Every structure is written in structure tokens, then in C-alpha cells.
């Protein structure tokens, strides 16, 4: 009961911190909101990357798709989208509060569901690929999406779309979007926590460990892969819709499909925190985002070099991430038991690693 009690306090503390953070530190609300989104990014990437062993460089595809779908629905429910984009925002559209909120609600829901569908479609394209081909393939799909949306005049092409303005004062707007980000991140976490306690997770891990064997054991790997990606896509799509509204103006290559920024951050945060665990991505996201926000202002011009160096160092020297490192150091804390005899045998025999080329 002691452990259970502690767990409840812990979760309650986090929830309260999340709810009250913007009230206690109102100046940082926007940054906290982005922090929750980053946590969401990391969690969704880990479904495929950590649990399933499929490293996707193109998850940002759903972020952008969700953003555009939500925007089109929001505007399209009450106005003609084609006409709005044809004038590059030269036409002003007004939204009553009712229109705005129904628009956003419908937009987010549809974005999530549509991305679910997109994951199924794109899954068919990319899931025959493995390892690095999968990574490159997903990267290619994400870049292609950005380019094609940029050429699509209906959604404004390269000129982008300006989103409807929030009806209400700036303080309200911030809290509203903060809450949306917070709730989405928490929902994602709760969903994944549940998911990782089911057989689904075991199947995913089986695919990660040895896909051929898993297939031979009777697991319909394709089905599991597609479903896993759909889950990620659902949450990513919603996060895209929220972020688009927060930013107020979206365009394909910079805001919606930023493969080189958010797309890579996703991977980096999970690697930093530790792949394949539930809390690893969360910790990685928090550390990454906090450090980034503090240091970037002061590293003018060098922040991206530092980021690239961080990726290299993390990948080369610290691949297990923080959780992995913690698990190795204090395995008992995480409920992992190490077989003493096996461990010492491994240390004594010469390593076979160099033979694998």
C-alpha cells in the first residue's frame, strides 16, 4: 500500500503542477504549452521507435497533416476555403465565438481521425521497409508531403493560411491553448500507460526483438504495425491542429512539416530520455525543452551546431539515454532483476561484437 500511496501522490502532484503552472508563472504559459506538446511528440515517437523498433524520421507528416486538416475544417465550416486562400488573406473573415469553438472542436476531432486513416494508407507504403530504409522512406514521405502541400493552391500553397483569431483576451487565449496542450499530453500518456500494460505492447516488443520470429509465432505483424502507427498519428494530428491555432499562421515547409526541427527533436528527445520506456520520452522531452529554451537565446548562431553535436554525442556515446543509464545503474529500482551468474559470465568471455559488420 505504501508504494501505491506514493504513486497516487506522485501523479496527483504532476497533475496539479500542470494545472497550476500557468497560473503561478503566467509569463511562461506559451513555453509550458510547447513543453506539453514536446512530451506528446516524444511519447508518440516512442510507440514506433522504442517499443516497436521502427525508427521513423517522418512522424512529422501527421503533425502537418493534422494542422492543415484542422485549419481547413475550421475555416471551411463557415466560409469557402478556396476563396479565402485565393486572396492570400486579403479577405478578412470574422468568427463568432460559437463558430470559433465549434470549428476548433470539429477540426481537432477530424484531424485526429483523418490522421488515423492516413497512417493506414501510408503504412501500406512504408511498412514493407525495414531499418534504415524505413527511416529514409518516412523522411521522404514527410518531405514530399511538405512539398506537395506547398504546391496545392486550395490550402494556400506556399503562401500559407492565417487562422481565425481567438475570440477573447490574450490571457484567456493562452490558458485555453495551454489547457488543450496539457490535456492532449496527459491523455496520450494515460492511453499509452494503459496500452503498455496489454498484450499489444508485448506484441510490439516481439516485433522489435525479432520480426520474423514474431510473424512465425502467429502475430499479424502488419496489422500491429499499422495500428501502432495509427495511434501515434491520432495524437500527432490533434497536436498539429492545436499548434497551428497557437501559432496563428501556418505554411507548409516551416510550420507544418518541419522535418529538420520538430521531426528530429522527436527522435532526439526519446534517445536522450531512453527508448522503450514510458517515462524515458517524458524525461527526455522535459530536459531537452528546458535546456533548449534556456540556452538558445544565449548561443546565438551556435545553437544549431550545439544541437547537431548533441545528436552525435547522444547517438554515439549515450545511446541508452537517461532511463537506460539509470536502469543499468540501479536495476532494482526499476523492478529488473539481474541474473548474477549470467552477468558475470558475459563479462568474462570475449566480446563477439567486432565480428558483426
Amino acid at each position, binding site marked *: 500500500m505504501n508504494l501505491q500511496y506514493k504513486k497516487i501522490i506522485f501523479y496527483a502532484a504532476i497533475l496539479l503542477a500542470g494545472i497550476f503552472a500557468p497560473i503561478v508563472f503566467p509569463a511562461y504559459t506559451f513555453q509550458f504549452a510547447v513543453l506539453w506538446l514536446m512530451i506528446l511528440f516524444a511519447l508518440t515517437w516512442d510507440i514506433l521507435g522504442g517499443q516497436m523498433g521502427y525508427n521513423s524520421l517522418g512522424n512529422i507528416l501527421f503533425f502537418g497533416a493534422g494542422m492543415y486538416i484542422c485549419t481547413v475544417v475550421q475555416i471551411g465550416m463557415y466560409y469557402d476555403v478556396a476563396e479565402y486562400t485565393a486572396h492570400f488573406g486579403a479577405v478578412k473573415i470574422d468568427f463568432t465565438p460559437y463558430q470559433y469553438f465549434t470549428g476548433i472542436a470539429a477540426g481537432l476531432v477530424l484531424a485526429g481521425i483523418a490522421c488515423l486513416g492516413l497512417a493506414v494508407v501510408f503504412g501500406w507504403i512504408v511498412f514493407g521497409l525495414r531499418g534504415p530504409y524505413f527511416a529514409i522512406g518516412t523522411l521522404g514521405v514527410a518531405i514530399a508531403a511538405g512539398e506537395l502541400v506547398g504546391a496545392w493552391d486550395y490550402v494556400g500553397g506556399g503562401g500559407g493560411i492565417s487562422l481565425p483569431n481567438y475570440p477573447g483576451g490574450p490571457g484567456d487565449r493562452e490558458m485555453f491553448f495551454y489547457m488543450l496542450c496539457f490535456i492532449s499530453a496527459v491523455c496520450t500518456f494515460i492511453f499509452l500507460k494503459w496500452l503498455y500494460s496489454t498484450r499489444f505492447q508485448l506484441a510490439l516488443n516481439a516485433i522489435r526483438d525479432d520480426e520474423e520470429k514474431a510473424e512465425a509465432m502467429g502475430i499479424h505483424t502488419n496489422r500491429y504495425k499499422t495500428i501502432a502507427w495509427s495511434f501515434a498519428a491520432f495524437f500527432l494530428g490533434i497536436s498539429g491542429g492545436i499548434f497551428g491555432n497557437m501559432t496563428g499562421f501556418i505554411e507548409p515547409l516551416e510550420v507544418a512539416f518541419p522535418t529538420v526541427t520538430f521531426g528530429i527533436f522527436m527522435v532526439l528527445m526519446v534517445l536522450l530520455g531512453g527508448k522503450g520506456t514510458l517515462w524515458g520520452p517524458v524525461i527526455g522531452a522535459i530536459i531537452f525543452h528546458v535546456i533548449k529554451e534556456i540556452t538558445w537565446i544565449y548561443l546565438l548562431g551556435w545553437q544549431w551546431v550545439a544541437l547537431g553535436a548533441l545528436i552525435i554525442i547522444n547517438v554515439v556515446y549515450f545511446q541508452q539515454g537517461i532511463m537506460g543509464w539509470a536502469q543499468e545503474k540501479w536495476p532494482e529500482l526499476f523492478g529488473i532483476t539481474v541474473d548474477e551468474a549470467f552477468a558475470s559470465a558475459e563479462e568474462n568471455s570475449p566480446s563477439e*561484437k567486432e565480428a558483426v*559488420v
Partner: protein
Amino acid sequence: MFDNLSLLGLVPMLNLQLLLDGLLIGSVFALAAYGLALVWGVMNIKNLAQGDFVIMGGYITYTLSQPPINLHPILSIPIIFVLMFVFGWGLYHTIIKRVIERDLFTSLLATFGLAIVIQQLINLAYGPDVQTAEAGMEIREFFGGEITIADTKLVSFLLALVVALLITFFMKKSRMGRAIRATSQNARAARIMGVDTDKVYAFTFSLNAAICGVAGVLISIIWVIQPFFGITHSIRSFVIVTSAGFGNLIGVILSALGLGTVEQFSGFIFGAEFQQATVVGLLVLVLIIRQIMQSRQRQVVQ
């Protein structure tokens, strides 16, 4: 789109011109792609920083061609080759060596990080504007001005061909070349036979960097260079290597020429905004086709 197609029909010379443009630029793509094929085939490293090596080569050329050095770009090719070779050697020993043994995603991500570092450093040094290096060559006209070919493009084509031949020759005849081929076939066996695989890997990676540098020289005289253009060149190399397979220099050259031509034609027919999308689209397409081919044999693309 249909206007453009009909234009091609009305002016048949245009087809020839576009074809020539595509072939000439494709030869430069072939260079970078061959380097990637080498590294991939021998070391199983998927180098996402390939395009950035190319851009680096271009920027070194640019710097050398400015006062006070004022070196003609073509003459700077050997210098770039050596400089990039040394750079590749250094990179191998610091970073690449440690990722060879690991799983395949590691090499991809590590080289991606490398790409970001290179891009940003070049950006800090030179600024984000595009640069060009001038070779000051003539432009030839044929058929009364209907077909124009810049000498720079012809020279690049020839140079690319020469470099490719030199490298093939090197691979077939020299000791190191044979060592490289042996290592790519079976590294463990090669090691047993006394080949220093570490040195082979270092050499291969450095050779790749050097080839990319030369490609960069050519890009700087026929196109433009900019710190952030590297990723597109990387993707082009990947498309070419994925469709040609990596044993196969002829395949790489043909794929590269094909890619160049398809780019030109699609830019013409569909409009310039699709030129970029075509490259990425082809990548996805090639991967899909590969998948389908593999799935016929109940295999997957590994």
C-alpha cells in the same frame, strides 16, 4: 500542364535540349551517388551528410576562387580532393568508427547530426545567401540558337566521367581497391586474410568525402550552393543508390542520368514547383517498387 506537353510536341528541339540538360547534370549526381554506394556497400553506413560534403566542396571552391587566391575552379579540383580526403579521415576516426558496429539507425542519425553541424557551420561562416563560382567558359549554340550548352556543363560531364573511370580503375587494379572489395564481400574473412579493415574503412569514407568534394566543385560552377541545400543532394544520392543497388557503377551512372533527365522534364511539364517534389517522390516510388519486388519473394527491404 497540357500546354507544356503540347509545347514539347511543337518544338521537338526542346526535347533534345531538356534531355541534354538532364544528362549533363545527372553526371554530377552520379559522382555523389557513387560515393554513397561505396560507403554503404563497404561499411553499411547510410551517410545522410553526403549532400553537405558536396556543399562543403563547393564552398571551398568558392573561397579559393575569390581574391586574393583567385584560383580557377577547375584547377582547384585536386586541392579539394585532398582537403576533403583528410576531412573524411578525421571524421572517420572521431565519429564514424564508433557507429559502424552499431545498429543501422545509429549511423543514419549520427550522420544526420553531422549534416546539421556542417550546415550550420557553413552558414555561420558564409551566410545563407547562395554563392557561385565562376569558370568563365563559353556557351555553345547549335541549330541557330535553339540548343545551348554551356561549356561548364560539358566539362563537368567529362570530369565526372574521368573521375568515375579513375575510381573504377583504382578499385580493380590497386591493392587498396582489392582490399576494399574484399572487405565489402566479407569483412571477417578479409580480416583473417590480413587486411586491416579499419584502414580500409577509413580509406573508403575519406574517398567518399573526396568524391563528394569534387562533385561540389562541379555544382558550384554549374548550379548554385547554399548551406541548406545539402539535404536535397543527399536525397538524390539515396534515390540513385536505392534504385541502382550498390555493386554496380554502371547502374549508378544510368540511374543518375535518368534522375537528372526526369527532373528536367517534370520541371518543364508540371511546373518548377514540382521539381523538388519529384526527387522526393521518386525516392518513395523506388522504395515502393522495391518492396513490391521483394514481397514477391516474400522478403522485405532490409
